């Protein structure tokens, strides 16, 4: 989206929706490349569907799907040849807008006797086009917009990349067992926050336009006007995803529930299973914790201040004055879950969870945060107990 903080700009689908036959999908990628963009899309690497630079429809995971459950992810052949017949993998678009490792500032001097020159260089950002952004991922991008753009300070690294990005969303037509976007009210249908949105149907794609930039690209494609048959097929395909979602998270009063149960024995219980490995925070599309460290070259006269993704599960994360505040797994898991589902509301006015299910899938012991919340809700220790009857 070229205007990330604009309000919903969805065009009513029946007005301008177009149909792009399957054999013309390459035209979309070509148009984005011709628009001087680096196109990032799904591709298979090391038996997972990841997001990397693509240039051809042949790069896409055509005919593959992902089978997911807590602690488990496998690719399987589909019995059709759809391009987007998978759900979400270990990557999210976070890595392109909030890079895992980036230089936020530099310091240089000519020699040890001269003064330092300190800069915060503004990189010329890559003009990305994201192909295949799911509804939960659009929601995740909106969550990170609030973190990096909408507080008293703006992160220039995120700002530059975000402003330049073009988003091609894809509506889910199936769900994984780990999906719970319907509980978080983030999906599975893409409603806003995209430039173009595709729904893969028999013989091609229904394309909706969500921005002026999207309209320009759409115009350059050889699309046909979408007919009622295309709309019906798209609606059925989207409904299929809705019906496949079986996991739920009861979000009723969840902030008060979790912050009112900070001493609940369930934290100790989950700490016995949690490896504190940081996987959940690395795959989470909204986790934003990082650490800036100084990296000097061998001369010592050039220093990069490098920002790297960090995790509240790392012991050093809460290090202060010779001690660690969260010195056990219990306190670190509690920090992650209460931040994500509870205190995020205080900080940013919404949940930090979009229901993508990645933290379930990529957790080695398969910890399911929806079950952890349910366990706390079942034995709500607040006095007087309230909201525990649901």
């Amino acid at each position, binding site marked *: 989206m070229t205007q990330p903080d604009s309000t919903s700009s969805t065009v009513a689908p029946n007005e301008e929706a177009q149909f792009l036959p399957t054999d013309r999908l390459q035209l979309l990628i070509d148009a984005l490349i011709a628009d001087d963009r680096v196109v990032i899309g799904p591709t298979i690497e090391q038996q997972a569907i990841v997001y990397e630079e693509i240039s051809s429809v042949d790069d896409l995971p055509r005919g593959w799907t992902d089978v997911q459950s807590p602690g488990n992810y496998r690719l399987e052949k589909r019995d059709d040849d759809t391009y987007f017949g998978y759900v979400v993998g270990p990557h999210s678009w976070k890595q392109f807008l909030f890079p895992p490792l980036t230089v*936020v*500032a530099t*310091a240089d*001097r000519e020699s040890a006797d001269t*003064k*330092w*020159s*300190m*800069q*915060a260089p*503004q990189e010329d950002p890559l003009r990305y086009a994201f192909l295949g952004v799911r509804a939960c991922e659009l929601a995740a991008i909106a969550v990170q917009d609030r*973190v*990096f753009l909408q*507080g*008293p*300070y*703006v*992160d*220039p690294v995120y700002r530059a990349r975000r402003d330049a990005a073009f988003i091609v969303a894809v509506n889910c037509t199936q769900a994984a067992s780990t999906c719970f976007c319907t509980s978080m009210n983030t999906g599975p249908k893409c409603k806003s926050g995209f430039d173009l949105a595709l729904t893969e149907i028999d013989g091609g794609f229904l394309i909706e336009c969500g921005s002026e930039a999207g309209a320009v690209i759409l115009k350059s494609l050889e699309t046909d006007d979408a007919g009622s048959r295309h709309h019906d097929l798209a609606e059925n395909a989207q409904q299929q995803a809705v019906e496949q979602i079986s996991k739920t998270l009861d979000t009723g009063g969840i902030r008060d529930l979790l*912050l009112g149960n*900070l*001493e609940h024995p369930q934290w100790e219980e989950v700490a016995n299973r949690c490896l504190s490995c940081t996987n959940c925070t690395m795959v989470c599309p909204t986790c*934003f*914790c*990082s*650490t*800036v*460290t*100084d990296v*000097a070259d061998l001369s*010592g006269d050039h*220093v990069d*201040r490098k920002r790297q993704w*960090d995790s*509240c599960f790392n012991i050093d*994360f*809460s*290090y*202060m*004055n*010779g001690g660690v*505040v*969260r*010195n*056990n797994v*219990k*306190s670190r898991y*509690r*920090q992650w879950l*209460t*931040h994500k589902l*509870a*205190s995020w509301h*205080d*900080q940013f006015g919404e949940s930090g969870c979009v229901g993508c299910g990645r933290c379930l899938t990529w957790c080695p012991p398969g910890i399911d945060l929806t079950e952890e919340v349910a366990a706390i809700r079942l034995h709500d220790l607040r006095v007087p107990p309230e909201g525990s009857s649901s």
Partner: protein
Amino acid sequence: MSASYPSACVSTNPWLNHSATIARITQETPGVATYDLVIDDESVSVSFHFAPGQFNMIYLPGVGEVAISISGAASSGPSIIHTIREAGNVTRALAELKEGDSVGLRGPFGSSWPIEQCVGKDIILVAGGIGLAPLRPVVYEVLANREQYGNVSLLIGARTAAGLLYGDELETWNQSIDVQRTVDRSTSEWTGHVGVVTVLLERLPIAKPKNTVLMTCGPEVMMWYSIRTALSRGMTDESVWLSLERNMNCAIGMCGHCQLGPQFVCKDGPVFRYDQVASIMKVAGL
């Protein structure tokens, strides 16, 4: 929790450090020194304004940054004053520097003490160790406008007499406000109070608890007991303020390190009204 907005120094790019020269170093106590810093770029220097309680990030290229509260008066001219205790990598490297050397500076960041709410009221300041440094700008403000405030008491605790900060100044302050000191361990030359600072607070007459503001900075356990004492003396949650410390890496609410429950200590704090943090201060490891 006074509203604070990014100053001109940090609004364009919050990651940008400004080069500053160490104009003066004053050795305070063993391991603690005060650094007067002057931002080299004059246009940045004149636009630098802070409120008592706010902090800067001090940067040593190749070593890193550290969050340090400003300990000087708001009217200290181009000098921005920080009292720093050697505690970690950056502060130890700082201790090696001499006058004329340069450092980087970003700021000011964070919330400030509620001085504007203290006009016409009695004030109690409770400081432990290096915690006196973030409170010193309040003292300066009170001394500069002494007639605006009622009874003002400054209660200072330190481990030993040698660890009492700003020794010479305390005598001057004591002519305008009530300054009381105590040490945990007495030494032969010490003739004053011995014991924790909360004992001073327990003995302090609080004539109008509903019309008194308490501000405290020091070890968390010291602040905790000071606040409990204040509340037991009839003061309310809304008139008790404290300055918290957490690992601050970015200072702009983006790195996540300093979170304490819903609060980002760097931008929602470091100064909090007690009711903002009362419930979360009780939970270990939060």
